């Protein structure tokens, strides 16, 4: 089973990397970009026997830092 975990900074948490990417896009001449937030994508290949609960636990215990980040689990196939 393929699982994607999207990790993003919580709203309000400063994202200097997103800001730098935003400036760089502007430098390339792209206009109309209001904001950029950088995140992370994890692609997990897990056995079908792994429960949703266990995947959720992986996110909470390691993949995301709940102090600053949110996560979203997407089952691909």
């Amino acid at each position, binding site marked *: 089973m393929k699982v994607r975990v999207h990790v993003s900074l919580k709203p309000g948490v400063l994202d200097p990397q997103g800001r730098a990417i935003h400036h760089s896009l502007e430098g390339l001449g792209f206009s109309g970009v209001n904001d950029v937030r950088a995140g992370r994508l994890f692609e997990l290949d897990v056995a079908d026997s792994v429960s949703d609960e266990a995947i959720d636990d992986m996110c909470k215990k390691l*993949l995301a830092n709940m*102090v*600053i980040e949110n996560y979203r689990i997407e089952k691909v196939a």
Partner: protein
Amino acid sequence: MAFRSAVVTFPGSNCDRDLAVALEKVSGTECIRVWHGDAELPDNLDFIGLPGGFSYGDYLRCGAIASRSPVMQAVIEAANRGVPVFGVCNGFQVLTESGLLPGALLRNSGIRFVCREVSLKVENAQSLFTSGYESGQHIRIPVAHHDGNYHADEETLDRLEGEGRVAFRYAEDVNGSARQIAGVLNSAGNVLGMMPHPERAIENTHGGTDGRALFERAIRGLVGA
């Protein structure tokens, strides 16, 4: 009673020797070196140091993998028993990632790695680690980090301030840290994490000695000398 300290080395630690040498020079006793894969710590430790560096290459998040390594379970148990634990730089990141200290360290607001001496204000001069300073005293300590921007929600920040758990504050804007916080204590006062490197300011050849009082006082407080 001889002072008994240990410094943990993670793969990618690079200030472990600095911290061990500082503890040895100030205490006069050997500092025990512990490896991240060790499941147990030596017995009867008076002090555990978590050093600076780039544990596990800063993969995932700074300090994230190190905080889940075998030795950290033992460090967390020791901290909960009241053993003093001191994390510098990456060690501070490991402490927040492990949940021993609140908050998180984000990328510096100016994006750049900051490597220079900064001015710190001592906020709490009563803790085990800081009683060698005066409250409000300004000291000069080097910093060297990319991810030192302290973040916590407003409620947590208010609680830290109210409980006197902000040990040090930057006297200048260094990395965008919330309320310029440079170092925080746990609620029991036996765990301190800070981004600046006091172990790099303990003798004149370092260019300053303002970090020495932290080690002197902690060691004196612990062995009652």
